[in-house]
């Protein structure tokens, strides 16, 4: 005898296809030149809050910190690329970053991340 009982559970409130009926108003995406950061701001905020000493950080502070981090990445990438070029290589290797870090005083804080 077929057990029809088990398969009969109705799905609750799913509607036809979830989101079809209620479009959300979208925040304006990139107006010319108005992108705030390439880094996901929620993640930046999470990183800031991971510090137990930090109580509150304002939204604008997060924004500019994200932008600073972007600039940092650009700078270190360019520095490392210079090292690669000096080594006459076209591929950026990890050692290029190592060199870039050691060459710049402000990057001393990174020496802990090098294995």
């Amino acid at each position, binding site marked *: *005898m077929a057990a*029809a009982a088990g398969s*009969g559970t*109705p*799905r609750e*409130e799913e*509607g036809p296809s979830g989101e*079809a*009926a*209620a479009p959300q108003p979208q*925040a*304006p995406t990139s*107006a010319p*030149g*108005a992108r*705030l950061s390439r*880094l*996901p701001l929620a*993640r*930046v905020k*999470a*990183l*800031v*809050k*991971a*510090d137990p*000493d930090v109580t*509150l950080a*304002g939204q*604008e*502070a997060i*924004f*500019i*910190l994200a*932008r*600073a*981090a*972007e*600039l*940092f*990445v*650009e700078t*270190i*990438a*360019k520095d490392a*690329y210079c090292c*690669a070029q000096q080594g006459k290589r*076209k*591929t*950026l*290797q*990890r050692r*290029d*970053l190592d060199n870039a870090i050691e060459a710049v*005083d*402000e990057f001393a*804080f*990174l020496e*802990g*991340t090098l294995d």
Partner: protein
Amino acid sequence: MASSSGNDDDLTIPRAAINKMIKETLPNVRVANDARELVVNCCTEFIHLISSEANEICNKSEKKTISPEHVIQALESLGFGSYISEVKEVLQECKTVALKRRKASSRLENLGIPEEELLRQQQELFAKARQQQAELAQQEWLQMQQAAQQAQLAAATASASNQAGSSQDEEDDDDI
């Protein structure tokens, strides 16, 4: 993707974001994977560094919330003063974007389908779906009933014919 499990210390900037930035900074340059990995970690460290310094500056300033000004001072004191002018542009854009967003959301309320209408449509669709589910369930229930009835009928006829045949065998009655 919020993760409630796992350490906060394992957080990093997502690799994809870093890859994109590297690509824009160094187009047409190949970058080894372990180099990318290192950049991710360095970026994370940078954020910790600046936010920690900014936090200290904030504490000294008797304010409770880290402000853009605190971040700027942190950049300066840690030797990243060259970033400050570009970073200040972000502040300006913040205000512009916030302004546009406020305008846009008020515009959305005036044009297009108002929210109540959208809600109404959604309720309609839910109601329809519920009805369909109910009808389906009803059908299945009916089918089950019919099947059960037929089974009972079959068993009853079988046992009836058995009793007519041989009165010794009562085992068949247990077959339902």
